């Protein structure tokens, strides 16, 4: 079982019913699994920021949710993470990293580099998975922690090394 299948299992075990996402290549398989899962509602977002409102509303409605995004989307979250902090919404985000070693697109580098600090600055606990086996346990732990948590999946785990490779995913 690959990490997407393991994470999907962890999400099911945590009772996650609402999945907000802006698609990215690294999350392709997990998005497919969530979309195919009849117990889950996968909500495609026009911007990652919408996922925060979605998760907050789900929490008010007593439902667990997850947000799937790429590190480039983290910059779109900043102001609304203020609400997450003030209201103590137990947000869980799974973030595929770009701009790290092996990155082919220099425009990904600034936000990739800034992602952990931006999240920490806005009061989100940051957990790093540098190996495929670490991802699902970190996600499971995030649902027990009771605080807003981002699980960052290192680019080396995703393994996309070129634009061509990304397009044939």
């Amino acid at each position, binding site marked *: 079982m690959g990490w997407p299948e393991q994470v999907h299992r962890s999400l099911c075990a945590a009772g996650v*019913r*609402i999945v907000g996402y802006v698609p990215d290549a690294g999350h392709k398989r997990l998005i497919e699994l969530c979309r195919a899962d009849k117990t889950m*509602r996968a*909500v*495609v*977002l*026009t*911007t990652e*920021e*919408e*996922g*925060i*409102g*979605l*998760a*907050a*509303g*789900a*929490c*008010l*409605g*007593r*439902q667990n*949710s997850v947000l799937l995004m790429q590190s480039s989307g983290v910059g779109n979250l900043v*102001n*609304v993470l*203020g*609400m997450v902090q*003030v*209201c*103590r*919404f137990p947000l869980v985000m799974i973030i595929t990293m770009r701009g790290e070693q092996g990155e082919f697109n220099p425009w990904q580098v600034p936000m990739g580099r800034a992602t952990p600090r931006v999240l920490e600055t806005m009061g989100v606990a940051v957990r790093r998975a540098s190996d495929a086996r670490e991802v699902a346990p970190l996600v499971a732990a995030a649902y027990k922690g009771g605080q807003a948590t981002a699980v960052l999946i290192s680019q080396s785990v995703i393994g996309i090394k070129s634009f061509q490779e990304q397009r044939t995913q």
Partner: protein
Amino acid sequence: MELLRDRKNLLVVAGLGSTAWDITAAGDSPLSFPTWGAMGQAAMMGLGLALAQPRRRVLVVTGDGEMLMGLGALATIGVQRPANLSVVVIDNERYGETGMQTTHTAHDVDLAAVARACGFKESKIVTRKNQIGPLRSLIHEKRGPLFAQIKVKAERLPLVLPPHDGVVLKERFRAALLADVLPEKL
């Protein structure tokens, strides 16, 4: 606030500023969530709530400035087509909290048309008081998602402030929902 008369089991999210004061003036309730920030997110919070509680009617009441900051949400909601969600924009064509500067709707941007184009089943502009009663019925009964843009005068109405402790607002909402659900389960 005519819209909230006889609100029964309606779940309400209000965008920041005068819409948050307005729903409070109509009678604060644990099942109202007034926001004091997160501008642009009111409609998405309504979506999350509507998807989490499909058997409840959900109403988002917000201002034109707040809706404009999260315009993409109308597309996201349109794709999901939640039958139990209504989004109502109280459009005074102003940024009320920052000095009454005009918003895009003062310059003919038509939010109801945007909502319709995004897939809202019902989308209308309301300009007369006698249209509010029928709108209220739609909010409670009609299969949505529903969008309404209520054109109002830009004026300063008396301020009634809701609680601003976000944790209190969240917990009272969640507890009230649980209390509502339990009797059904008995």
